[in-house]
């Protein structure tokens, strides 16, 4: 068996790729022009390569491209609607959550996944969600503020809904 043909949906569009068995999703996405997926460590630690796989953040450097067959992938390229930025992107700009920008695509994606699951997160929940995306520039204060602001902005934009159910607080591990 040499090459594999895989079919996946990327940012809503069906894609058909020919890949080698050992190809990783990070490399295939970049090869296919999704430049917003960044290579930061290739060992699943830094999170710069995060994409959403069926809505959940994963590090694309640890996913074999073959495993993406039949699945839904979202990259940062799919977040804005043309020139119109998403509220999460707006919030990162307005709150200074972007410095060098290398981790920004991943931050935006994990934020979108968080807000889809938990529309009004606490600061601790935001920090947990961002904890898998390394940033060496910001010290995380402004990205956290940006996520909280985006959550508020999205909630205001949404028609009145019952308050979001809070998950049971997880007990902290030993400090």
């Amino acid at each position, binding site marked *: 068996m040499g090459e594999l043909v895989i079919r996946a949906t990327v940012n809503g569009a069906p894609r058909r790729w020919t890949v080698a068995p050992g190809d990783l999703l990070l490399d295939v996405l970049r090869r296919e022009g999704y430049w917003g997926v960044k290579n930061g460590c290739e*060992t699943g630690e830094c999170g710069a390569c995060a994409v959403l796989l069926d809505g959940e953040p994963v590090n694309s450097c640890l996913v074999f491209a073959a495993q993406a067959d039949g699945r839904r992938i979202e990259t940062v390229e799919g977040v804005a609607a043309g020139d119109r930025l998403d509220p999460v992107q707006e919030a990162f700009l307005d709150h200074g959550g972007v410095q*060098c920008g290398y981790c920004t695509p991943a931050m935006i994606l994990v934020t979108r996944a968080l807000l889809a699951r938990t529309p009004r997160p606490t600061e601790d929940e935001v920090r947990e969600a961002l904890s898998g995306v*390394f940033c060496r520039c*910001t010290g995380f204060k402004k990205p956290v503020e940006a996520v909280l602001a985006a959550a508020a902005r999205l909630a205001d934009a949404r028609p009145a809904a019952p308050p979001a159910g809070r998950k049971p607080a997880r007990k902290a591990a030993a400090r």
Partner: protein
Amino acid sequence: MSGASPPSPPSRRAVVGRRVRKVDGFKLVTGRTAFTDDIALPGLLVGRILASPHAHARIRDIDTRRAKALPGVHAVLTWKDVPRVPHTTAGQAWPEPSPYDTYLLDSKVRFVGDRVAAVAAETRAVAEEALRLIEVDWEVLPPVLDMEHAMDPGTAVIHDEPDATGIRDAARNLAGDIHTHIGDVEAGFRESDLILEREYRTPRQQHAMLEPHIVICWLDADNRLVIRTSTQIPFHVRRQVAMILRIPVSRIRVIKPRIGGGFGGKQEMVLEDLCAALTLASGRPVKLEYSRHEEFFMARTRHPQILRLRMGVKRDGTIVAHHMRVLAATGAYGSHCTTVQGNTGSKVLPLYRAPHLRFDCDVVYLTTPQAGAFRGYGCPQGYFAQESLVDEIAHELGMDPIAFRLKNAIRQGDVDELSAQLGEGKKGLPRTIRSCGLPECLEKGAAAIGWKEQRNGGVRRPGRLLRGVGVATTMQGSGIAGVDFAGAFLKANEDGSFNLQVGATDLGTGSDTVLAQIAAETLGVSLDKILIYSSDTDFTPFDVGAYASSTTIISGGAVKKAAEKVRDDMCCFAAQLLDAPPEDLVCRDNRVFAPGGKSVSMAEVAVHALYKEKTQVMEGASHFNTDSPPPFCATFAEVEVDTETGRVRPVHLVTAVDLGVAINPMQAEGQAEGAVAQGLGYALAEELVLDGRGRPANANFCDYKIFTAKDMPKLTTILVETEEPLGPFGAKSIAEVGINGVAPAVANAAFDATGLRFRRLPIRPDAVLAALGGRR
């Protein structure tokens, strides 16, 4: 040559001082092609480096025949194939004050990870296979890993090559040394009522910028060498590569796209020379990048130091004498070796106005990863030691640490003479303090941390979790006096927009935004009318690059001058339209106003100039300063010490910083906050560990821990604005100063909580636990 014009009143400013969005933010949040690697080039080859497995060895012979024969391999280079040109990789203005002790490729390796050979091939797999086929006949030499014994007689000589220059004493592995003083410290100690002498140790810290070093080179249609690189120093890279490859500067074009962080790690020519050599050898485009693993030990680190400080004070808390002795390791090569360590003295000692100061420093070679520039540039080491020591002295004297610092700190009007003796590689210039907000930083910072309420005074209370607060005061510079300079170029477009071209190098700091704000404010236009481009050696003016906290004050100074010239030009053309003398006109809100209120738009003026007067409005300007105004910072830390695990957990960090005028307060805060994150890592977690053979033991993000969103404590950032006469709109700098005080503030807070002093970084839990146990 300060270029200072009378500042406009801050309240009237439309763009400067505003929390505006990054001008380059759109492409970053949408993931558009911005970075070095975001480009598809037909025929691109992948370069890989054969790294030395030995800390110290000679290559008796190297056989590349099998590698060259491998299908898909287009170039294999060893020292036999390239020019031998001694140079430094330090990105510094020519002539660089670093020894020329480095070669593109050499027949000797000096650390685990040193370059042995390089390959360019069709794919990474083929390149790596080719590396495996290179046969090296090694003569393994003894490693030199301990800086305290590097100069011992009989130790292996690391730089025994005859053609290196600028090394202080190669036979003793002494890369450089510095000995300077003002007054007479021994006399000062005789006058002192209390003398404390302490030793401090600091680790190898790695920059860990998220984008590792990466370069792509190709030959353009005119056979010129194009270098697209993630660098802080495009113009130095052009000069260095020309020299190393013996090709004219005119044949090289360096393009700096977006940079994914640098922190000094890219103030260095790290891969550009080798990538260019592979392109010249293969005739093909080549990409050369470090993996994250390689980045940890094949790029650069902060210089590890052992510092011995001796300070004498009067009973009333007046510092009389301070003698700082530093032993530092530059690793295998000496880039930045004396300048970083010079800063440890020149930017640290003068913070306290003692009549007797002495600085003695040796920088030794080791067969370890190479040290280089890193945010703070020698100050984090020096301030960890100095601020720990003054805290201890204040405690001994029974004085409040803030009062002790205020009593001794340098203040407005003071002239720091030590700086005059410690220039970058030559005699420097005296530093006059024209603005100083340090007292206000201490006052506001203390209020924010709850200094009076939270302080324990080093008394260990019962209980598992102990809390304490600590403080450190620090300064930095704003550009290198008499060395750093920059150019800027502006031209007017017919819609009232302006192209601003700068060689300044935004490495993620937001300097493109700050420079655009300076131009917009000066021209009286909105920020969206400034189209900034940085940087490309073919199209943008020279700039030394982004380092030494220089961009806002130096490059910003050039931008302001160029914008003033363009504004004057626009006024001359507007005068024709408004029928008023040009000197009476005022530019604001994208218009030019005559005294009576009559106005024309910038676009109308530009159209008039272009199509009626047949003139392109365009101006360039250069700028440098003969002084380096220090930003001042008070860093406060509250920590919690777990007496069972020894973990020191930061709870709250307050940074109160006098940065002059904040051109963009939001970005300025971001600089301070990022510096705290890196400083906390330095204080508590980060250290590149080498084993007994000089091999890295934790060259990955799993074992080299940096602070994540979950680890970061509450941060409070307080911008204390002063008006600096030498800076554009009163600005100084912010990028580096914030890191200096974090480790000492944390260590002092840990003392406040436990009564124990921690004099070695990072403060490891096992050391804390051992110390706590010793006191039980």
